[in-house]
Structure formats: structure tokens, C-alpha cells
């Protein structure tokens, strides 16, 4: 029984390693494109997306470090509510900023339509 679980563990480790290598290689050769990772539809970079990216990465990396740091690896006993509050603040800011930006772009398209009498060339929000 122990041998079976050991074999399964090694298979899983190998599978995850292969998956990780594939993802990194695809990013490096450009098949997975990250160029618009923090961009808005109009092409400008969004600070709220960048902040969301940073916090997701930091909290995700912290969680991973805590899980794999233990011997044997284990889920943390408690996750402080402040972590969720921080993620909530970041996500909330992103959502509100996106709402403000969309409202602005809709308004600008309406103005374009009113002044030119044609559909706006601006990208849809």
C-alpha cells in the first residue's frame, strides 16, 4: 500500500513538474502572451490591475511557501482575516476603477456619437 502511494506521489510530482515546465516554455517562446496582462481595452496600462496582480502573486506565493514549507506539507491552521480584507480591498478597487473607467468611456462614445452623428471609433469598454 505504501509503495502504491509512493508511486502515485512520484507520478503527481512528475506531472506537475512537466506542467510547470510547459507553461514556462510557452511563455518564453511567446505562445502564452503576457503583453496585455495589465492593459485596458484601449491599450493603456491599468494601475489597479497591476496592484491586483501584485497582491495575488504575493498572497499566492506566501500561501504556497507556507504549505510547502511544512514537513510534511500542510494547509495553514488559520488564515488571518486581514489577508482576505487586503485581497478584498485590492479586488474592490479594481472593480470600482473599472466601473469608473467604463462609465467614462461610455460617456465619451455618446459624446462622439452626438457630435459626429456616427458611431464612435473608441473601443467598447
Amino acid at each position: 500500500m505504501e509503495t502504491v502511494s509512493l508511486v502515485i506521489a512520484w507520478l503527481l510530482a512528475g506531472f506537475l513538474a512537466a506542467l510547470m515546465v510547459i507553461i514556462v516554455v510557452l511563455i518564453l517562446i511567446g505562445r502564452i502572451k503576457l503583453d496585455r496582462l495589465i492593459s485596458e481595452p484601449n491599450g493603456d496600462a491599468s494601475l489597479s490591475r497591476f496592484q491586483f496582480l501584485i497582491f495575488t502573486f504575493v498572497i499566492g506565493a506566501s500561501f504556497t511557501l507556507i504549505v510547502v514549507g511544512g514537513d510534511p506539507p500542510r494547509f495553514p491552521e488559520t488564515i488571518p482575516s486581514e489577508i482576505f480584507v487586503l485581497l478584498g480591498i485590492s479586488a474592490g478597487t479594481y472593480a470600482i476603477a473599472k466601473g469608473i473607467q467604463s462609465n467614462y468611456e461610455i460617456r465619451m462614445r455618446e459624446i462622439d456619437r452626438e457630435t459626429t452623428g456616427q458611431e464612435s471609433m473608441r473601443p467598447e469598454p
Partner: protein
Amino acid sequence: MGSPTTVLRYEVLLFLGALALIIFYQLLTGKINARRMLLAKGRAAVGPSTRRWTGELSPSRIQLLVVTIGVSIYLLAKVVRDPGEFTEIPTGLLLLMAGSEFLYLTRKANKLMPFPGILRSIRRMLRRSRNSWSR
């Protein structure tokens, strides 16, 4: 060779490190678009043509970026020093983060909501109520 859990631990750490390095490198070289991330947006930043930006730096965006990086470094440093459990975040830090976000959002709303801006509306309402009280 160690146990599967040891191998998995190093795999995950290497993967996260590689991702972070790739994103950092692509941000530095411009492959990930970071165009105008710190510039003010909206009518106040628009030049004579509606499609040209005046290049005005936005203090609210810069302060948000600085606070975000500061909080992230604090969190990571705590976890690296004590990887056993999640660290508790001081309430003051959360309040700082919330205040920074609030400042950024109110500036953004004031710049981008043309008819009328939120702060202008609030100022107008306060002026009207002050005038009605003084009568």
C-alpha cells in the same frame, strides 16, 4: 534523491521564482505593456487633440504604487522570516492601504466623470447647504 514532497517543494518554488522573473523582465523590457500606467487620465490630461496626452504624472497613482509595493515587501519578508503560518497584518497597515485606495479612486472619479465630477457635486451640495443655513 529526496522524497516526492521535497521534490514538489522545490518544483513549486522554482516555478514561482521563474514566473516572477519572467514578469519582472518583461515589464522592464516593455514586452508587458505598462504604457501610461502612472500618467493622469481624463479630460485634465488631454491636450488640444482628444487623442493626445499631456504626459502629466498622477501623484495619486504614484502614492498607490509606493504603498502597494511597501505592503507587498512587508508581507513577503514576514513569510520568508517565519514560513510556519500566515502573519497577522497590523490594522494600521490595512487602514493605510484603504486610505491610499480611497484617495486614488476619488481622484480617478473626479477626473473621469465629466458631467459633473463627484467632488464637484459634493462641494456644490455643501456650498448650497451652507448658504441655506446662513440665511
